[in-house]
């Protein structure tokens, strides 16, 4: 059973300083399921992800907070540790290094840190990791382009994006 009292407190705590931390958590969709949440992080400054807003799907397992939350990028990201196919994240704290003392907010902040500090030696997406190691400039360009294309939906309308892709 998920500790919903804790989840509710976490949501309140996280959204209190949303503007400063750059991370926020909402219930997924318009549902009222506290075990299915939707997180948002802003791209860190001085990275190819700057200016983007990244959606993360959060599912809380039965054992939360004693088991790590399951997180996955909904927004497509070009990053060595994030699958360019399905948004799966390779981050230790979401796996064996999870601690119940961590929260959804700290996990999201860790994801933000991961965006600014990729770990190509422990990749999730081998192609991206290879590009990062061999051709950093191309990697930067692609990552920036993906951010422009997928993480700035609010600023660019869908039609414009389609036009751009065409």
């Amino acid at each position, binding site marked *: 059973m998920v*500790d919903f*009292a*804790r989840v509710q*407190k976490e949501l309140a705590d996280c959204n209190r300083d949303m503007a400063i931390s750059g991370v926020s958590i909402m219930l997924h969709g318009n549902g009222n399921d506290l075990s299915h949440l939707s997180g948002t992080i802003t791209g860190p400054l001085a990275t190819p992800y700057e200016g983007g807003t990244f959606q993360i799907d959060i599912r809380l397992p039965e054992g939360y*907070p*004693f088991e790590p939350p399951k997180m996955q990028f909904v927004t497509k990201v070009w990053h060595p540790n994030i699958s360019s196919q399905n948004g799966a994240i390779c981050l230790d704290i979401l796996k064996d*290094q999870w*601690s*119940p*003392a*961590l929260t959804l907010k700290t996990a999201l902040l860790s994801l933000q840190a991961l965006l600014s500090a990729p770990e190509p030696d422990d990749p999730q997406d081998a192609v991206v990791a290879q590009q990062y190691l061999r051709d950093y400039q191309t990697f930067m360009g692609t990552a920036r382009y993906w951010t422009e294309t997928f993480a700035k939906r609010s600023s660019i309308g869908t039609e414009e994006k389609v036009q751009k892709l065409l």
Partner: protein
Amino acid sequence: MVSDSIVNGPAPAILKDFAKKKRSNRTAKLKQCKLDARREQWLSQVKNKGCKEESNGEGVSPPPYLRQNDERKRSLNKLETRTRGEENERSSFRDSDLESLENSPSGSILGANDSRKDRPGSSSGSSRSSSSGGCYSGSVSEEEEDDGCLDDWEAVADALAADDKRHQPNSKPPAEPKTPVGLTDSHEPPSKTYGAESLKPECHGTNSRVAANSLAWSPDDACRPQSLPNLSKLHSFTMNTEGHCGRGAVIWACRSIISPPSSCPICFEDLDLTDSSFLPCSCGFRLCLFCHKRILEADGRCPGCRKQYDPSIGDMGVNGVVLPIRLARSCSMVFLSVLLLSCINSVSDWFKDSFSFLGKFVKELMLLRHDGHGSGWKVYETGRSIKYRVNL
């Protein structure tokens, strides 16, 4: 309580008195001189015992009155013929009381105080008179009986000095108006009954004066007898007795001593006293015992430093090696054990089994927590990590 005992007692008597008004007035006048003399004598005794009667009059020690009330009811049933005559006598007491209040040379301040002392005294006196025939002598001896009781109360007050000190600065101004409320409450019913005895104007006069000069003596009054107890202490103490009557108040008292608890970083629930003295890891990361137990069931690593928990420390927390010492320190846990013993009969059988002997009891006690609302207790069974509430 005091006012109740007074109201219940004289009310039927007054009806009879009303029917025999003339006779009673005559009897009253006949006895008045004698009673006034006795009253003078009594007042001189009262001044010496002012301290004790003050507390007596305020109803700080209700049990004697309750007893007297019962006693009087019994005696009224038994000795109906005798009590009629004594009721007359009693009404004459009141007449004399009121008149002496009116004529009291020391003025309204002392008068108000006299009325405070007299009413309970007269009721107790009448209860005595029905059995022994004595009047004020009875009430005096009654007050002497109360002395021991009062000493006990003061001892308790000293024992609760920690709370008193905390309340003392605040209690003086707001608590003192409390006394007049209690006074007028306890005196209004008898004064109504006087109204039936054609003493209406006098009564109202006294009554309003009691209300106006609600304080017998202000703490800095020059007329205030030295023997009177410290009012502020008394008030803060009565506040305490009010506060200690409920279970919630006990918890309140405990919490007021303990600094506000921080919450468990895992479940976000408040850490109780045992939790906050529980240090399972050398890194200093604190958590509640329930989350600690849950982690031990899984990988057993400290959430703060990810190091494996030292099993010896874990055992110490769970198996109660240091627990008895903690229990002795923790007043909330002492209350808990008392409450638990009282509720064991009302909970399920498996719960009883797990509390079958004391050693186990101490261990299990770790897993009983107050839920913070004053109405229920969460009980956690060891080995199964089941949470449920026991409403006492």
